[in-house]
């Protein structure tokens, strides 16, 4: 069976065994070999095999799955380069395994295979949060794993319902017709960070290791987008879900101090664009969503890499503690700005080429309100990801950090990512060639470019004015309430209160109740014991009394 996923996953098990150069070579070679294997394999389904009477198709290569798998493998390569300096073979191996599960899920031709990789992705990535080996990281990892497992269980239940309804295991268009489909959508919604289901992402991504955050940003959520694009294209519900996802994180991102958490919010925002694109459906919508997903894998990785480099050198990513780093880390600053420009969809950068497809799809459907909201979200993303991240990290007040430039391998990884961003931005047709549906779209038209520049200029003006006038929310250490408060605070508090109350109740009420029960028991069974009435031998007169009472009662009942 020729599957790049298995190649990566089995190859990764060799990583901890090797040392030094062979290990680095293996880490770099595996994604490249995966890419080669992917592109040398012909399109179509692999030979299926039967398991427990179910027909499974482990590998299916078509334009959509090949595009996503390519993106995942490139992201895996970039992450591996970024992680080269580390002496922790565990994380390097897990990054490859995790990438392998994402590729496997993408290439899955049936729902069972998808489910297996879906669960493996959740399980393997949890180690990236645990790899920090801190108590805080351990707890965050548990929360993350629980969210992933719930998602997996929902998907399994959905698949079971589908099979029961006789709809088979084929992983094609699923729609929202049966209860099973709704469960699958909910499962995807958790991984895709639908509003209110998103808490785990904001909660746990910033707790991951430096490398872990980069890897997490690329795979799990994009796999969910792929499943949406494959299974639920053109579902109207998703348009509004996507719009909500683009809009609400903006406000959180503005006030958030932890820059990696800002990036997590911005990730939900970007996912919102993709979900909306899937919701629009059609050639343009799906093309836009998948192109943006691939572009996002690269530029979001780039931003997380830059923040990771800052974290590595300064030990913090708090906006309130950073500033003026451009003097110490000029290359990182420059590369970060490329990523910021890409996510903000500056012309000539990748975001411009891909997000335009989604906006165009919305425009063609004449969904004015949606279009306006997405436009607002675009301005917002420029504001918090495009300006805020580089501004507070590398400029703003100089906090006096004098540190070394990021390690070479990190810079190489960031440079490669930046190159891809610029490449897609300047030559979008190369990217468009790979998209699942054929189309003719030219992003660089005069009105479009001017429109976008206007938007960006006005947004940067607004930022400048706010900062200048001191109205901008100050970068202060704070905790912002989000949906994760439900399970991080309310549920534990309730549980804590219950667990304190129950033993107390037992202590205080237990003996009296026990005593009462014992008394009640002896009182009720007393008459049945051989030494008490009525089970003891009755005196003669009471027997006769009872005979008379019986006679009287029955006579009364009969004659009255």
């Amino acid at each position, binding site marked *: 069976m020729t599957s790049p996923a298995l190649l990566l996953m089995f190859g990764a098990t060799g990583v901890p065994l090797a040392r030094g150069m062979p290990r680095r070579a293996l880490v770099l070679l595996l994604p490249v070999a995966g890419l080669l294997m992917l592109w040398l394999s012909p399109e179509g389904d692999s030979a299926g095999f039967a398991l427990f009477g179910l027909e499974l198709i482990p590998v299916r290569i078509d334009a959509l799955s090949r595009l996503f798998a390519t993106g995942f493998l490139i992201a895996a390569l970039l992450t591996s380069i970024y992680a080269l300096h580390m002496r922790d073979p565990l994380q390097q191996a897990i990054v490859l395994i995790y990438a392998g599960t994402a590729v496997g899920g993408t290439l899955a031709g049936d729902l069972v295979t998808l489910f297996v990789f879906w669960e493996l992705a959740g399980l393997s990535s949890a180690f990236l949060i645990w790899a920090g080996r801190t108590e805080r990281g351990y707890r965050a990892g548990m929360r993350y794993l629980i969210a992933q497992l719930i998602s997996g269980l929902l998907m399994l239940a959905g698949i079971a319902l589908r099979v029961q309804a006789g709809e088979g295991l084929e992983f094609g268009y699923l729609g929202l017709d049966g209860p099973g489909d709704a469960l699958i959508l909910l499962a995807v919604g958790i991984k895709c960070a639908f509003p209110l289901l998103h808490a785990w992402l904001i909660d746990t991504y910033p707790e991951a290791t430096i490398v872990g955050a980069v890897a997490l940003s690329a795979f799990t959520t994009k796999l969910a987008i792929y499943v949406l694009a494959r299974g639920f294209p053109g579902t109207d519900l998703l348009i509004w879900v996507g719009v909500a996802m683009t809009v609400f994180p903006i406000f959180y991102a503005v006030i958030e101090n932890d820059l990696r958490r800002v990036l997590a919010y911005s990730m939900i925002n970007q996912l919102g664009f993709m979900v909306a694109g899937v919701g629009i459906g059609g050639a343009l919508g799906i093309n836009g969503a998948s192109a943006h997903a691939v572009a996002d894998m690269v530029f979001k990785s780039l931003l997380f890499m830059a923040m990771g480099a800052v974290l590595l050198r300064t030990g913090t990513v708090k906006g309130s503690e950073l500033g003026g780093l451009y003097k110490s880390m000029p290359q990182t600053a420059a590369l970060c700005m490329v990523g910021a420009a890409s996510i903000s969809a500056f012309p000539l950068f990748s975001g411009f080429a891909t997000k335009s497809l989604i906006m165009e799809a919305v425009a063609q459907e004449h969904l004015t309100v949606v279009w306006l909201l997405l436009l607002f979200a675009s301005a917002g993303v420029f504001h918090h990801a495009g300006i805020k991240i580089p501004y507070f990290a590398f400029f703003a007040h100089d906090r006096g950090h004098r540190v070394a430039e990021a390690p070479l391998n990190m810079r190489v990884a960031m440079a490669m990512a930046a190159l891809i961003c610029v490449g897609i931005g300047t030559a979008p047709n190369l990217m468009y060639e790979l998209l699942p549906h054929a189309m003719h779209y030219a992003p660089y038209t005069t009105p479009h470019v001017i429109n976008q520049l206007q938007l960006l200029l006005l947004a940067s003006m607004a930022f400048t004015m706010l900062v200048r006038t001191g109205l901008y929310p100050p970068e202060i250490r704070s905790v912002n309430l989000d949906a994760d408060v439900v399970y991080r605070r309310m549920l534990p508090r309730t549980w804590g209160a219950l667990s304190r109350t129950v033993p107390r109740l037992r202590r205080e009420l237990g003996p009296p109740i026990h005593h009462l029960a014992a008394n009640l028991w002896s009182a009720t069974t007393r008459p049945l014991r051989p030494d008490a009435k*009525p089970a003891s031998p*009755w005196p003669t007169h009471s027997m006769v009394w009872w*005979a008379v009472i*019986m006679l009287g009662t*029955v006579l009364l*009942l*009969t*004659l009255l």
Partner: protein
Amino acid sequence: MTGQLPVLQVAAPLLCAPLCVLLRSRTVAWLLFLVASLASLTCAALLAVRVDRSGTLRYAMGDWQAPYGIEFVVNGFNTPVLLLVSLSAVVVAVYSRRSVAGELAPRRVPLLYACLCLTLAGLLGLAITGDVFNAFVFLEISSLSTYTLIAMGRRRQALLAAFRYLVIGSVGAVFVLIGIGLAYAVTGTLNMGDLAQRVTGGHDNRSLQAAVVLVFVGLAVKMAVFPLHAWLPAAYAEAPSAVSTFIAATGTKVAIYVFCRFAFTVFGATLVFGAMPVGRIGLLLAALGILLGSAAACFQDDLRYLLAWSSVAQVGYIVAGVSLATTAGVSAAYLHMIMHSVTKAALFATAGLLLLRLGTVRLAALAGVGRRMPWTFAAFVVAGLGLVGVPPTAGFVSKWALVTALVEQGQWLVLAAMLSGSLLAVFYVGRVVEVAWFREPTADAEPAAAPASMVTAIWFLVLLSVSFGFDASLPAHLADAAASALLGNGGG
């Protein structure tokens, strides 16, 4: 000769009774009782076959034709009772030889057999007679001899128990007599068939209704229906083992038969169950009796008291079936009568054997007895399972029939009581089994081997119970015939 079978049925034991007293030999007395019971069993079997072939048999006593003379009637409704009583007598006769010798002073033994003969005669006469006053006479014969038998128990409590039974039993008998008198005053006849005809149409007659109530309350004492059951536990538990085995198998059952006979073929179901609330009262008392009897059995610390309380509950089952007044209900009641009779006789016989060997049947003294007397106790366990109603024992067949009859009439509360009673039975039987098999024996003295005649009698009853559990066609046929004879009003 065969024409005289109905009277021989009663006369044989009746004649043996004075002979037992006159000849004053233990062995002869025992032989006389054995012969009397074998003779009545033969008569009962022959009568059953003849009734099965050619329907009702009537025998006019001294050729005085009914309704002026006393009449014996043999029909489907009393052949099972005749068979049951005489078969129990035979088994008890076999069982009693060694049992009585171990429990009674030698000079009393002939008296005991005389009383057993009288009791047998009384019960058989009660079952066979077609005359209401004659029924009262036989009721008194059986009752008086039973009081005497109970008083022969080896503990002093036996005297008290017998006295209490005597008082309450006499009160009950007086009620019956007053009822019969009232009925005679209303109808002017004592013949059952004749009464039945004259009663028709007199449903609003208050005197007649009072007669019904008096007869039934009087019989309820004999049947040990809750709350008139109080004489039963001490009477059964204090009597000599052979006696308790005999009366547990037959006493209440014959009273229940008389109840059925009066209810269905003398006063008529339309009067008793239609115009009067006897059915509902019966079901209520049955349910209460089942619950209280079973619950009290759980707390007893003496094996024979435990079994006696269980009998109170079992009477409840039978009364519930009769009170339904449907063919299924009455048939189930007859079936349970037969099954319970066999089962409870086996249990009391086992208890008697244990008493003979251990000197006491308090549960505390029974610890580990199952390991010392495995065969005897195995019989107890099998019979106990029959009491619970575990398939494939006899108890299961009859309880199943009862459940079906109750469900058919939608009597869910009674059904619930019955099922709870069965659960409690699991508990009280399980308690004995736990003590006997799983507790360490207190004394390691090896008891002498059980007498073969007693073990034979016990195992005969147990195997009979199990064989009825596997193939209930014979008792089911008898019960169905009885139910159709009663409800078809064919006896007269």
